[in-house]
């Protein structure tokens, strides 16, 4: 092929590229937004939480080493195990896989950065600040103590009146929002910033895994975010969603929680599997066997994982028929796991004899530990076996085999494998072998005996146990194993301290890998964006590293003098436009600090201060947004190969349109969870609405629905006016549309008010009220967005060509109208029709 750009390159091209991407120096590095810096901060912070969560686990094992131990009292122990689970799941496992993706994916996809660097930085800082504050609660003995699963009624205000549970609900609820922000960025990044020629069928398996995982985050996190909102509303205002005597149901929480909680396991596992699918071919020096089948398995797993949640509730007294279905689905998920395991083993067969490098050792450890976890997973999928082992140490053993084997071992393999992209050289092979050996021995010694202690009748979450039940030996062995694990982790940290140096500029491919993250890299990623023609570009085109570094491929410099990335089409990766990315800045950090402070102040019930930080955060967000949507600052630019692309597009080609669509999917999943809660409580209620509650008259919802339709129509009119340049008409229609929307909300509220809606009396009133609350939140957001569009229009920043701001507002507006009409139908028409 002829290369897109000729030699020699203009003399100052590289210097200008380096300048615009240069990271801030000294302490200002905290204002960096580039994925390389944010990714490393992110990984470091997640590792810090791994250490905190691990230290708590050491306390657990110290307490349980002998029967009747009094090292920790029950209060402390319950906080310790709750925080261990919560930190490991919410602050370590999910964040670290997103962190690895933020760090690795742009390089692997040959792009300069993810498409929303400020959003990425905001998501990271919100998580870091919120997570650290959350962890501090245990220092004051006010940490959550109701288990990481937070089942009501134990966590309700009646049985947990103190602030501990609120830390969980507000702290974790808000950190999940940051996970969603990360997912938005990953979906758009993977679909829209791949290098030219990297069709979906040529995409690295890790990118496939992260695409599926980000999709799963979008649908799995909203139910639990809604659940935390409901439980917090119940605790704060007495809306009885989970109180059985008042038309609520404690099992509603379990459904919402596990509808998140089970996919969450695969959200953690699939990225690790994607890493294994990347590392194994390199180790074997042969392409992955069965690429298509592996991608199919990842997609299947992602879909299946949403059909398994009730297997966490096999002892709750569900009907045997529905349990049988969930049991079968739980077994079936072993099939896509099997596909991947056999594809990896087949790759090792096809490849050369394995050299026992540190990544190879960890991969072998992964196979051993994960296979055991998978097999015990099939065992607990069988109903009768689960009835015995559910909530016992057998399940503790199973889940740690799956998570440590399926996620931590691949993660350590990944650390050792990709460390050279950070520091230009590998970590110590000698220390690495020790780390792997200690972790392997530690995991098996800690968790294998737990299978036995569980079958011998030891339940989970007990702060102590009596002697004489044959639990002494397994527990002592587990505690000794935990010590080995701790030594292994300390040695790993030592290896990092001794051998990891962040260098910025790296040019190395020590394992002879085939993927693009082994191109010569600087802060801007690769010098030029490569043209891709196969799945293994570095193997199939050995000259590629040199060509890319020489600037022979696309976009070898900066065409606008700003940070840029090349946006390509989602399926076949054809160049579409050059997006201008924001430079480093403090706004994301400040906005994140404000958001975290807002939620924490709410938790400790300092409402005025919370309102002030909320206003500050909003100001930061507006300031941030104001700098976006720059419009076509230059005419279309030449990226090489005779291709000219614009630097600004609108409509469905715009990457921000895609982000808005993803956000709408999140909103839709939230609304669906809310309607699920409403219908769920309906199915267990003898009468709906309950006695002493009634539906508003027909007229109210009909009028509200009509007003929503009208407001949507007015926005459409505003859009037409904007396109024709009729500025005054545009402003008029937009403002009128806003008023119509407010009228719709007011009619909805007035109808319920007139019908005497009582949120505190019954689950019916509570769910209806929370639907109104969410609807109100949408209206408030849209009012702010409309005002923002008007302000931009007045400042001359919004016109027929420069209109992404308004287009996104319109998209959300139409969605809100559809959501409102569906809600009105569910809350007003269905009870009449079915009742």
């Amino acid at each position: 092929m002829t290369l897109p750009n000729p030699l020699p390159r203009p003399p100052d091209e590289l210097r200008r590229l380096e300048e615009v991407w240069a990271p801030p120096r000294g302490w200002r590095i905290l204002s960096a937004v580039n994925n390389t810096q944010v990714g490393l901060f992110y990984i470091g912070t997640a590792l810090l939480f791994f250490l905190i969560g691990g230290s708590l686990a050491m306390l657990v094992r110290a307490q349980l080493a002998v029967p009747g131990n009094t090292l920790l009292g029950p209060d402390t122990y319950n906080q310790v195990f709750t925080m261990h689970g919560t930190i490991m799941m919410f602050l370590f496992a999910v964040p670290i896989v997103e962190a690895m993706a933020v760090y690795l994916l742009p390089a692997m996809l040959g792009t300069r950065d993810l498409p929303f660097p400020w959003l990425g930085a905001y998501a990271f800082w919100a998580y870091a600040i919120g997570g650290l504050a959350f962890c501090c609660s245990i220092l004051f003995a006010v940490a959550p103590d109701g288990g990481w699963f937070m089942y009501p009624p134990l966590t309700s205000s009646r049985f947990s009146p103190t602030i501990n549970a609120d830390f969980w609900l507000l702290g974790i609820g808000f950190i999940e929002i940051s996970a969603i922000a990360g997912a938005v960025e990953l979906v758009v990044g993977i679909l829209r910033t791949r290098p030219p020629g990297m069709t979906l069928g040529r995409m690295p398996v890790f990118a496939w895994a992260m695409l599926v995982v980000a999709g799963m985050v979008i649908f799995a996190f909203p139910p639990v975010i809604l659940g935390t909102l409901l439980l917090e509303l119940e605790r704060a205002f007495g809306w009885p969603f989970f109180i059985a005597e008042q038309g609520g149901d404690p099992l509603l929480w379990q459904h919402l929680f596990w509808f998140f909680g089970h996919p969450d396991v695969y959200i953690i596992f699939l990225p690790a599997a994607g890493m294994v699918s990347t590392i194994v071919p390199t180790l074997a020096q042969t392409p992955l066997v069965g690429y298509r089948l592996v991608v199919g398995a990842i997609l299947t797993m992602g879909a299946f994982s949403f059909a398994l949640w009730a297997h966490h509730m096999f002892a709750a007294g569900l009907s045997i028929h529905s349990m049988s279905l969930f049991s079968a689905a739980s077994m079936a998920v072993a099939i896509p796991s099997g596909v991947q395991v056999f594809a990896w083993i087949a790759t090792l067969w096809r490849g050369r004899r394995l050299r026992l490098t540190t990544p190879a050792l960890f991969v072998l450890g992964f196979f051993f530990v994960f296979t055991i976890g998978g097999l015990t997973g099939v065992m607990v999928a069988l109903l009768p076996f689960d009835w015995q082992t559910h909530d016992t140490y057998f399940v503790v053993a199973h889940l740690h085999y799956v998570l440590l084997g399926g996620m931590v071992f691949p993660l350590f393999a990944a650390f050792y494998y990709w460390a050279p992209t950070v520091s230009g050289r590998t970590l110590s092979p000698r220390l690495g072998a020790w780390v792997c050996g200690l972790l392997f021995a530690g995991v098996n010694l800690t968790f294998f005996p737990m299978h036995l202690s569980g079958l011998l009748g030891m339940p989970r979450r007990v702060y102590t146990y009596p002697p004489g039940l044959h639990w002494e030996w397994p527990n002592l062995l587990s505690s000794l194993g935990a010590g080995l694990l701790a030594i292994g982790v300390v040695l790993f940290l030592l290896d990092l301290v001794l051998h990891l140096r962040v260098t910025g500029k790296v040019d190395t491919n020590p394992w002879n890998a085939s993927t693009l993250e082994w191109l010569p890299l600087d802060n801007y990623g690769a010098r030029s964006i490569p043209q891709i023609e196969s799945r293994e570009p570095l193997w199939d085109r050995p000259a590629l590293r040199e060509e890319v570094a020489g600037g022979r491929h696309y976009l070898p410099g900066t065409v606008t003098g700003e940070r840029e990335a090349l946006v390509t089409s989602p399926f076949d990766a054809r160049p579409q436009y050059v997006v201008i990315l924001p430079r480093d800045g403090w706004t994301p950090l400040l906005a994140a600090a404000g958001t975290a402070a807002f939620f924490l102040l709410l938790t400790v019930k300092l409402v005025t201060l919370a309102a002030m930080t909320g206003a500050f955060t909003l100001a930061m967000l507006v300031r941030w947004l104001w700098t976006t949507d720059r419009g076509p600052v230059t005419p279309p630019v030449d990226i090489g190969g005779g291709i000219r692309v614009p630097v600004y597009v609108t409509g469905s080609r715009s990457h921000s349109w895609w982000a808005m669509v993803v956000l709408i999917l999140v909103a839709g999943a939230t609304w669906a969870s809310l309607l699920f809660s409403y219908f769920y409580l309906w199915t267990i209620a003898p009468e709906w609405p309950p006695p002493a509650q009634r539906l508003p008259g027909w007229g109210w919802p009909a009028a509200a629905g009509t007003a929503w339709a009208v407001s949507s129509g007015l926005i459409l009119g505003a859009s037409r006016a904007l396109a024709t340049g009729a500025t005054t008409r545009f402003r008029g229609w937009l403002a009128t549309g806003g008023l119509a929307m407010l009228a719709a909300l007011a009619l909805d509220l007035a109808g319920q008010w007139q019908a005497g809606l009582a949120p505190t009396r019954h689950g019916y009133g509570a769910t209806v009220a929370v639907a109104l609350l969410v609807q109100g939140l949408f209206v408030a957001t849209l009012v702010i967005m409309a005002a923002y569009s008007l302000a931009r229009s007045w400042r001359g920043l919004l016109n027929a060509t420069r209109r992404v701001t308004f287009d996104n507002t319109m998209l959300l507006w139409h969605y809100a109208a559809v959501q409102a009409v569906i809600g009105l139908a569910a809350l007003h028409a269905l009870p009449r029709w079915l009742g």
Partner: protein
Amino acid sequence: MGMQSALAPGGPAAQAIANLATVLAVGAAVIFVLVMALLAYGALSGPRRVHTGLWVVGGGIVFPVAVLSALLVYDRGLSHALSTPPPRDAPRIEVEGRQWWWEVRYAAGVAGRDVVVAANEIHLPVGTAVDLVLTTPDVIHSFWVPSLAGKVDMVPGRRNRLTIQADRAGIYRGQCAEFCGVQHARMALLVVAAPPAEFEGWLAREAAPAAPPTTPELTQGHDAFLAHGCGGCHTIRGTTALGLLGPDLTHVGSRRTLAAATIPNHVEAMAAWISASDRLKPGNRMRSFAHLDQGTVAAIAAYLASLQ
């Protein structure tokens, strides 16, 4: 293998699950060894040709589908059999999980009484399927006696059912399996399986009101029990103590343990529990009567121990 072990079954349900566990463990071990052998050979051998269909479709799809289908048949058959309700005339016992003990009610038509209330100890006739009704007035608990059957949760607003049967006489230990708060760890119970005649005798004794005190010390204990307000929480049938918050103590002296199988039951343990319950089971709902003098405590303990 222990009195609280799924590996030491004492009845048909636990036996069937133990058999299933054996099949699963052996099968898993075989598959594990097979996979590890394939892995070791692949890692250690030089390059060789592989057939994608054979490996990935054969090993990853056909093989698990075959194994899992067989397991599914086993799973369905056994789980439906274990969920079959007991015969209509099966004795029914209601067990209510409370923070952090168990109330046990026998629907016994004995001695003109409808219901016999006891706590933390379930008595069963050997060889009979018993219908358990599992409820809770506070948080979620889970009823689990591993040697007899799998566990079933006690969920507010629901009446869950579990059939248990002990085929050999003896004492089985059970423990709450759903985290239920600060003393979840010390919410255990005993199941006493006895031959039917012995069980009937026990139930008849249990249905009777408490024996009146027969010695001056016992009388002192009885009076102190009432004077210090113990009857606000506890019932002793045949006296004016009618409290419903704590365990029924009508025959507490006959029970093998105290505080939901936390400590063995004897008169000194009873005295220790009364004066320092918070030390023995921190956070439990009974207040410690540390202010009572030793003599009074000893008298109350002696009286309670006499309630056989």
